[in-house]
């Protein structure tokens, strides 16, 4: 044990970059840090339900290994990755050896992957303890994490509200100080929208910047793994660990990553042209969201950025195109879950016991309603006679959306919009209205269609409900570094205004937990 007297509560509130410095300076040990997070999970996750599986034993073992290497010194200690010993949570859509991977679905309950995702291999190579697997909408299909087969995750800002989705577990874990870092996946906003509604930072990298190998596919041409963190610099640090070419992913970009950490550290917006997308704010956006968005613009302007307005007229078709392409690809990607090779097998209750019926019964019992909805929709969009009108047309809209981005980036270096049209809505509010749920992704979807990178960072609290608002930055494909450069500046301007990180204003879950416990005991 070190003589450091940093309390566990202080420790868990440090950013990954700060933890990394303390670890390297020998002020804390990796075991202390990991244990502090495990304790925090034990204390508050009963309320939040961010984790589907906690990986305490392995996480502590990895932490102990880091401490031993560091204690021994020498070349091996020198070679330790900057984030060695900094714990991380992994969205349960990403496969891991030694822990279950469920994708939030009953169809994979109890399944253990015999292989690691590329990003997990890279976390292991960096010796980052994996705290566990986080909750999500089943197969990442949803914007609220209510479609998880294992119960909803709750928003640490208000436990009666949704944490966003599909990656509500990762965002809530980071927001509730249950992890300093997490991995998410973003197909139509599943990293950025949860980031927005939980007051955290989330990045969807350029398509191909991070390997998809081992991320259970929803829509292959849209999916992208990315960082979920509390600061822009932490996202850059994590992106740098998981990103870069992977020969196992044919769509992986061949070129090496830019130095994203340097970009986050040398932020500057002076003379930068920042484009407001006309179609992605105003009507349909909550007033408090709009206000915080305007505040951000003001700050950027004051810092020397030039604010321009751009128009992306084809974005009006983006949501529709997304809800054709995504279910089409998903219907195909999810065909493999049939009760033959792994996962659930359910026998039909009556009638002939053929493999066809067993597949049908397995998929009927194993998939939730939203997954079934999307599979049927995708099957429809690809079926004979409809392909051209649906899937084919949607792929053309994709071209139009790309052209809109090209035109916009000719006028602006980065684009800016609110991340989500509203703050976190109450649990259950949109569960029976799929279309209303889908509208949450209206501002995040264009980036997935075009493959361009997007970053969401906290923009403050909405006046009407005191809940976090997200600001989204978008950059041209392969220009992820720009997001970190601009994001870091905006973050520091905002934090200066707030007098500290936004999450410092979040309710004290540990106290709430203690209170709940007392109430329960009183009963």
């Amino acid at each position, binding site marked *: 044990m070190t003589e450091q007297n940093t309390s566990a509560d202080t420790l868990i509130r440090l950013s990954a970059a700060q933890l990394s410095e303390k670890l390297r300076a020998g002020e804390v040990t990796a075991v202390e840090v990991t244990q502090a997070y495990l304790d925090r999970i034990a204390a508050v996750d009963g309320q939040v339900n961010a984790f589907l599986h906690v990986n305490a034993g392995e996480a502590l073992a990895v932490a102990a290994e880091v401490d031993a290497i560091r204690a021994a010194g020498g070349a091996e200690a020198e070679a330790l990755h900057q984030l060695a010993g900094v714990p991380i949570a992994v969205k349960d859509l*990403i*496969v891991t050896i030694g822990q279950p*991977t469920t*994708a939030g679905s009953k169809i*994979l309950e109890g*399944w253990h*992957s*015999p*292989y690691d*995702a590329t990003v997990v291999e890279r976390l292991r190579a960096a010796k980052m303890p994996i705290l566990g697997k986080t909750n999500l909408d089943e197969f990442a299909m949803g914007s609220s994490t209510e479609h998880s087969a294992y119960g909803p995750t709750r928003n640490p800002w208000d436990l009666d509200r949704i944490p966003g989705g599909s990656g509500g577990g990762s965002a809530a874990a980071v927001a509730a100080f249950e992890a300093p870092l997490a991995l998410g996946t973003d197909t139509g906003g599943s990293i950025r929208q949860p980031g927005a509604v939980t007051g955290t930072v989330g990045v969807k990298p350029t398509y191909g910047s991070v390997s*998809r*190998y*081992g*991320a*259970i*596919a929803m*829509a*292959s*041409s849209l999916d992208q793994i990315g960082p979920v963190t509390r600061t822009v610099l932490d996202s850059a640090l994590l992106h740098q660990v998981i990103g870069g070419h992977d*020969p*196992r*992913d*044919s*769509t992986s970009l061949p070129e090496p990553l830019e130095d994203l950490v340097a970009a986050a550290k040398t932020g500057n917006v002076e003379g930068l042209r920042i484009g407001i997308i006309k179609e992605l704010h105003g009507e349909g956006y909550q007033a408090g969201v709009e206000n915080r968005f305007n505040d951000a613009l003001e700050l950027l302007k004051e810092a020397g950025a030039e604010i321009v307005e751009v128009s992306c007229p084809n974005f009006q078709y983006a949501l529709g195109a997304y809800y054709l392409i995504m279910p*089409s*690809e998903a*219907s*195909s990607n999810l*065909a*493999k*879950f*049939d009760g*033959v*090779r*792994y996962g659930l097998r359910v026998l039909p209750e009556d009638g002939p016991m053929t*493999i*066809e019926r067993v*597949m049908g019964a397995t998929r009927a019992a194993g998939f939730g309603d939203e997954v079934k909805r999307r599979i049927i929709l995708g*099957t429809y969009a*690809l*079926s*004979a006679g409809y*392909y051209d009108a649906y*899937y084919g047309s949607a792929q053309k809209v994709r071209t139009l959306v790309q052209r809109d981005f090209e035109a916009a980036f000719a006028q602006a270096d980065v684009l800016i919009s609110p991340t989500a049209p509203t703050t976190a809505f109450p649990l259950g509010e949109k569960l029976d209205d799929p279309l209303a749920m889908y509208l949450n992704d209206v501002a995040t979807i264009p980036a997935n269609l075009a493959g361009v990178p997007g970053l969401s960072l906290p923009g403050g609290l909405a006046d009407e409900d005191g809940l976090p608002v997200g600001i989204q930055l978008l950059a041209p494909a392969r220009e992820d570094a720009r997001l970190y450069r601009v994001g870091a500046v905006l973050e520091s301007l905002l934090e200066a205004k707030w007098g500290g990180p936004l999450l410092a204003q979040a309710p004290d879950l540990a106290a709430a937990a203690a209170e709940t416990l007392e109430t329960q005991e009183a009963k």
Partner: protein
Amino acid sequence: MNTDAVLSFDEAMEKYDPVLGFEVHVELNTKTKMFSSAPNVFGDEPNTNVNEVDLGMPGVLPVVNRTAIESSIKIGLALNCKIAESCRFARKQYFYPDTPKNFQTSQYDEPIAYDGYLDVELEDGTVFRVEIERAHMEEDAGKLTHMGGATGRIQGADFSLVDYNRAGVPLVEIVTKPIEGAGSRAPELAKAYVAAVREIVKNLGVSDAKMERGNVRCDANVSLRPHGRERFGIRSETKNVNSLRAVEHAVRYEIQRHAAVLDSGEPVIQETRHWHEDTRTTTSGRAKSDADDYRYFPEPDLVPVVASREWVEQIRATLPEPPAERRKRLKADWGYSDLEFRDVVNAGVLDEIEETIAAGATASVARKWWMGEIVGRAKAADVDPGQLGVEAATVVELSRMVEAGKINNKMASQVLDGVLAGEGTPEEIVEKRGLAVVSDDGPLLEAIDAALAAQPDVAEKIRGGKMQAIGAIVGGVMKATRGQADAGRVKELILEKLGVSV
């Protein structure tokens, strides 16, 4: 079991004109699979040549095997096809337990090769041009074994077992355009076409091309129309036709069956038929519920293949000599007469003879063995000669034993029977069956003396250089030794005795 009526082939031909079409699947002999780095090896323990990709595990992604692409381009070029400047893979979607992802990664509207032709030579030397529609890349499925039924067939099975070793093995599917005008030679053309494709891919070195192992598999489409009508009839697609003889028989059978159906006034049903080698008939196949809607869409996990003209030309430069040219060359090299060579080609033992010569036999010895001994046995066993199980090395070993005087030709034939009966190597069989020729010169010299003494006039002729006369003396010696003598050695000893040098 099968009660389909058939017309005689001659009657069918009198009334109808057959139109054929073939889909030939060629398994490539790459070291690894089409989209995964697991080994592409036949015959290993079940589910050991697999990794997470072949099993369709959650989260996996495919990566294309460069060699498989090059092999596909080679096949396209050898079939005189155009090679697509750019092509993509697509997902063909259907649920079946041998298909790990419940879709097959294939090519749909963008095949790598298209618009080609193949000139097929029939037995009498007639050349028939078969137009090639396309050759596209795809992956093989796993292997299902049906258990609990009496026959091992899907019908009547209680359950099935799946081995995914073959899942993901690279395939090139070669699709012909409709083949018209073959008339009564349709069955013969069918066999010759598949043989030609097999020969080409083997010659290219891109496939092991063993039909008995499923390296080359043929689906044969047959339809009939009344003579003089242009519109095609309704076709059947016969699957699982996995030998050259079976291709011929299946096409012949389907022509006869279709003719009977048409004669009865019923419409032919468009369906899949299964070929049964045992009864030489087809039966109606299962109706695939998804058959009419595969929901193809471009495979998002793979990027387009762009075959630059430079790359195509580089590959073209590596192509081996085409089979037709090869045949011309082999005929000259081996010194066979026209008739001898055509017999060899028609018997389907060109490759086997080439292998045998490569293994150390002379051209005439190789031909003598294959045409004289093995082809007849194959006919009797009702299999293709190559499938009988005779290795080139065995033929060479047998011929060497004969040349060495260890056994004579008659014995060698018996040894070959032993090899086919699985009794062991030729050497072991000679030992076991006690077939060694009399090799002690003592008794032979006695017999030679006796034979020469009995025919002094013949001995004189030999001394005078009339070598053909030696047969009479040899015959006498063989008679005296009841065939146990080595004729070659006898000849040598006679010449020695008479002081004749050759």
